[in-house]
């Protein structure tokens, strides 16, 4: 049952990725300009012809497509227009470190803070703690991360000079970008946790635990917390998306040498292979996270563990 479900999910995942890959290929065909225009247009027709031949761009489109897909499966995402024909894969790998570091830091700190905030709000339901946690959550969900990043940078770096305004040269440099990036995961976690916790606290089994004479603290931590935490895993999906969109803008604002900053730069100079490569990377990341969330959910929730499907 479970195995069948996993296999089915993986097949869908591969179909999705295949469609995205094909779409990027089609797009490359339609996009204006030859890849060698960027070199300054100083080439003669013969030189260009030699290059086209060398890169296989004179082959029929189906052949190119097959080669594109097979290269991609092998991790070869093509060659950058911008950087002297460096391979896209190596550009991405070079820049993966700071992005992963920043993303992980924001994800972990943001979700822990969010869970605590949401839990406290639910326990102190309808008190000022609850209201202020709600206000923080609404602000965190509403204010775009680049606006938030801009304000953080202006006040904490330019005005008060507490943190460095940009670059990536040590832990202190990660503070502002992390805060800017984690605000959305924190808010969404807090909100979700609060709702779940309130629902759990209003449930019959919590009342039964009370009727057993169990103390409030035990109810919170032994009965309520676990039940409320399980569904919070589902926000990992939207959180990943927000981290991906977030890195694009926040790395640019704080001059972090990550994938997002490279991506935005590539967009500005039409470096299509890098754009497509990064797009594929994001797609894979997203699809994998969605799958992992689903499987994790089944693993943690005993109701799903043995039945192999929700409900």
């Amino acid at each position, binding site marked *: 049952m479970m195995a069948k479900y996993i296999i089915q999910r993986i097949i*869908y*995942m591969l*179909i*999705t*990725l295949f*469609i*995205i890959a094909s*779409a*990027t290929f089609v*797009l490359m065909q*339609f*996009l204006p300009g030859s890849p060698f225009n960027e070199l300054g247009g100083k080439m003669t027709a013969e030189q260009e012809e030699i290059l086209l031949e060398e890169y296989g761009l004179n082959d029929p489109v189906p052949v190119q497509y097959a080669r594109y897909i097979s290269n991609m499966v092998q991790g070869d995402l093509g060659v950058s227009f911008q950087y002297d024909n460096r391979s896209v894969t190596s550009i991405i790998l070079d820049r993966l470190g700071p992005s992963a570091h920043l993303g992980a830091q924001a994800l972990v700190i943001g979700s822990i803070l969010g869970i605590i905030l949401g839990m406290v709000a639910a326990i102190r339901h309808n008190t000022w703690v609850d209201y202020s946690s*709600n206000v923080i959550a*609404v*602000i965190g*969900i*509403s*204010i*775009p991360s*680049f*606006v938030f990043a*801009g*304000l953080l940078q*202006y006040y904490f770096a*330019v005005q008060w000079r507490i943190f460095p305004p940009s670059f990536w040269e040590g832990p202190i440099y990660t503070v502002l970008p992390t805060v800017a990036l984690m605000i959305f995961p924190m808010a969404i976690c807090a909100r979700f946790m609060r709702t779940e916790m309130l629902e759990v606290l209003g449930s019959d089994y919590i009342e039964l635990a009370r009727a057993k004479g169990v103390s409030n603290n035990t109810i919170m931590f032994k009965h309520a917390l676990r039940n409320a935490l399980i569904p919070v895993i589902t926000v990992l999906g939207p959180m990943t*998306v927000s981290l*991906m*969109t977030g890195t*694009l*803008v926040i790395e*640019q*604002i704080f001059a972090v040498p990550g994938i997002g900053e490279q*991506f*935005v730069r590539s*967009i*500005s100079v039409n470096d*299509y292979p890098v*754009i497509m490569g990064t*797009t594929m990377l*994001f*797609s894979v990341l*997203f*699809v994998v996270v*969605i799958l992992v969330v689903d499987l994790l959910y089944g693993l943690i929730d005993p109701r799903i563990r043995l039945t192999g499907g929700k409900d």
Partner: protein
Amino acid sequence: MDKDHNYNPEQFERIQLKDDAGEQLTRPQISYWKDAWLRLRKNKGAIIGLFVLAFIILLALVGPFMNKYEFDDPNYDLAYMPPKVQGLEWLGLDGKQTYEVQGSTKEDAITRGLEGYEIDEEFLLDSEVILPAEESDNGYMTVAMEVDIYAARGLEDEYYWFGTDSMGRDLWTRIWKGTQISLYIGLLAALIDMVVGVLYGGISGYYGGRTDNVMQRIIEILSGIPNLVVVILFIMLLDPGLIAITIALTITGWIGMARIVRGQVLKLKNQEFILAARTLGANDKRILMKHLIPNVTSVIIINTMFTIPSAIFFEAFLSFIGLGLQPPYASLGTLIDTAFDDYRVFPYMLLFPAVIISLLMIGFNILADGMRDALDPKMRR
């Protein structure tokens, strides 16, 4: 029993109550929408959101006509004018600009600053050393100097309420024009999502069986594609513009709506009143339009309310990474994006659009929250 109490025998005569007396004593019945409105009105956050939105929308509509400037009228002599509002000088909207300049001495720094910014010394209002030479990295001291830039440029009678940008365009007009465009994109995207999502979800849920199966598989695959990716790919294909952005936003945006509508339709489909309509011979289209759609209206409204702010956000985001509207048109996103070039010296350029987009997002989000709480049948008692 109270023995001392004497009762009048007349009190024990049988009486006849009016037929409806039993009903009168119960709470009056109120309609679903009225009940929802009452709940919404009690929700302070939602009402605040409503007022903030009304205020911003009003200003977006009338703001550009409130002064004599045009949104696309560059004049490089008027670049970087700080905000100045009659009567609000005490709020800092006084048209004075503070520059940070460096020099070996205070005087040197000021001289260099005045020269660099082409300002006569008489307009220098104040100056202050904010970073002594010893503490700085390059051996120069940093001096903040405040100048009356309006006077320096001979524009004492001009009032740029939100200042001007690097091309001397009035930011007040540009910001409200930009707000119009952001709102337009948000509303249009939400509308398209709604139409497509309701149709897709409605058909899928209503016909069920094989149709539903195929349609759901398609959704499953599409929803695996991050919309960030779809949007970026489409904009690259279509060239940034109002229509391209809107279409890109709706390519996968309708999926959420389709899912919710399908779920609701599945739930409602087998309920008695639908079966009754069907046995009475109503055709599919009629049942769908007359019975199902009205009954899923509340979920549609709630979902649409959440789509608007996310579309506004996405537009701003696209502008920020360089895939947004092209000049001279402006949206809140492009304004913020351009502001980032200069905001360390001219923070007002960032501040105003940032505050407005934040208020807009907060307003839509809390209003949508409030509407969800008010309309959600689960919460209804």
